Structures are given as C-alpha cells and as structure tokens.
C-alpha cells in the first residue's frame, strides 16, 4: 500500500493554488516540481469535440430517450434542437426500446364506433325513405 509522504500532500496543495491561478506559499525544495507542474499545465490543453459530432451525439441521445417517455404521445425533445432521425439512429431505438407498445394506425376505437354508428343510421334512413316511396307507388299514387 502506498503511504502518502508529506511532500506529496504539500505539492497537491500547491497544485490547487496553481490551478486556481493563485500564488501559494513556495518552498525552495518544492519549487522544481512546481515548475514542472506549471509546464505540464501549459502542455496539456483541454480539447473540444467537433461541432458536427456534438450535435450528432445529441440527436442519438434524444432518439435513445424516446422509448423512456412511455406512452409515446409526445415527440422527442432533443438536446438543443429537434433531431432528424437517420438510418443510423434506428439501431439505437431498436436496442433500447424493449417490448414495443402497440401502434394504432388510423382512427382510434372511440372514433371507429362513431363512424360505424353514423353509417348504420344513414343506412336505416335511406332504407326507410325507400320503403315509403315503394308503398306510395303501390297504393295508386298520390301525385
């Protein structure tokens, strides 16, 4: 097991100061390592991903979040902007969707009932009108 040396602790405190841009207390025996720490900090810049990649990944994450919304009533809200799902997004959806919810295409059951009722009512009306015309024509005509 590694035992922490006092110098390691002190150096870490000095690095804290360095990272905050402050000048901490400097001791001569630690100064060479602190100079190296300053150099290392300058030598290691942070990097940023390409904008195109960042947006692509945002869209993939938005697509992956879609099944988690449950009912699927709402369209997915992307990170930052609305995603355009591409073919490459589909495996993500398929992989994370789990058992698929039944998808209803066209009118729902309630609306289907209304349409059927309307059709039956129309049929009955037309049949009634036809019966009246037929009986009048059979009874000698009133015209």
């Amino acid at each position, binding site marked *: *097991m*590694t*035992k*922490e*040396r006092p*110098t*390691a*602790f002190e*150096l*870490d405190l000095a*690095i*804290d100061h360095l*990272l905050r841009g402050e000048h901490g207390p400097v001791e001569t025996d630690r100064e*060479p*390592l602190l100079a*190296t*720490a300053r*150099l*290392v*900090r*300058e*030598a*290691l*810049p*942070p*990097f*940023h*991903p*390409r904008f195109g*990649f*960042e947006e692509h*990944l*945002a869209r*993939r*994450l*938005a697509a*992956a*979040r879609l099944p*988690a*919304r449950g009912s699927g009533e709402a369209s*997915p*809200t*992307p*990170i*930052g902007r609305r995603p355009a799902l591409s073919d490459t997004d589909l495996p*993500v959806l398929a992989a*994370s969707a789990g058992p698929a919810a039944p998808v209803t295409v066209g009118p729902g059951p309630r609306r289907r009932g209304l349409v059927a009722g309307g059709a039956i009512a129309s049929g009955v009306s037309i049949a009634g009108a036809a019966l009246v015309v037929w009986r009048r024509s059979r009874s000698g005509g009133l015209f």
Partner: protein
Amino acid sequence: MLWKGRGRSSSTAVVVPFDADRPAVEAAKRDPDAFGQLYRKYVAQIYSLALYETRDPHTAEDVTEAVFLRALSGLDGFREQGEGAASTFRAWLYTIARHTISNERRRDRRHPAEPIELALDLRATDDTAATAETRLEAERALAAVMELPPERRQAIILRFVHELSAREIGEIMGKSEGAVRVLIHRALASVRQRLES
C-alpha cells in the same frame, strides 16, 4: 460545495460533499429530456479525456458516444453517495469513461498509438505570446507525460486537464486520496527527470 449534516449529537457534524449536479441528475431521472443539460456540460471533458488516452480523434468520438449512451441508460441506477467510488455524477461519468477507454484499448490493440503531437493539433491552442522555446518545452513536457505509466499519466491528465481533486481522482481510479497524491508527485518527478536528461 459542502454542507454539514447533523447527527444525533451536534458535536459530531459530518461533512458531506454536495454534488453540484444533483438537481440536474434528479431532473434527468424524472424526465430523460433533462439529460441534455448534463451532456452539454460534460461532453467536451469526456472527449478530451478520450483523446488524450486514445490519441485518435475518431476513436475519441466513439468512446465519447459510448460513454454518454451508457450513462443515459444507467442513470436510474446511479445513486449519489457520501463517500466511496463514484460518489458524484461527475466521478461516476469519468469512471464509465475510464472503463470504456480500457475496453477500447483491449479491443483495438492492433492499431499502434500515434505520437501525441500528431494526434493532437497543438497549434490550434498555442499562445501567440509564447516563444518558440516555451512551445518546444511544452511539447517535450507533453511527450514526457504521454510516456508515463498509464496510472500516472491518467492521474496527471485528470488533475491538470480536468482539474479534478485528488479525492475525485481516487474515486475514479479506485485509490485513496493519499495514493493519488503520491502518484502525481512521482509522475511530476519523472517528467522533470526526463526534461532534464
């Protein structure tokens, strides 16, 4: 940020680290759309870590993508803890990144790592005021860091690029805070020795 949690005895106040990401994490657990906030905050950091470790921008993108997809799918299982491994969202995310990078290395051993100077476009980040001598010195320091043993290199990158504390690095690497400090101390000593040789 810290807050003091009071136990039964007021004399034994326990300092519990407050995860600055807690509100965003809770929001993302309730509504997955809120994960975007965490993604935007950390995407560059994870990419940067992956780029330093893989030395290949395309592989770094693949790693970044895998990390965030795993984090999104595993977010419900993340529990913030007062102490121990992956106690904060950031430490948890970096732990996922570290494992993903390790897996990628194992999978992709057939491709030798490029020299870091070629993999990273250092000219894009240069300081116009810096002299050629300073730049050369920084490049030598970078090369020295990249030649460190993996654990020392990772500790240096997490400390100096990502500005994580020794405690957070310990959580990510599965080491004690003191062990990380010693690791960094030895790493800097190695870099110094190499620069002087």
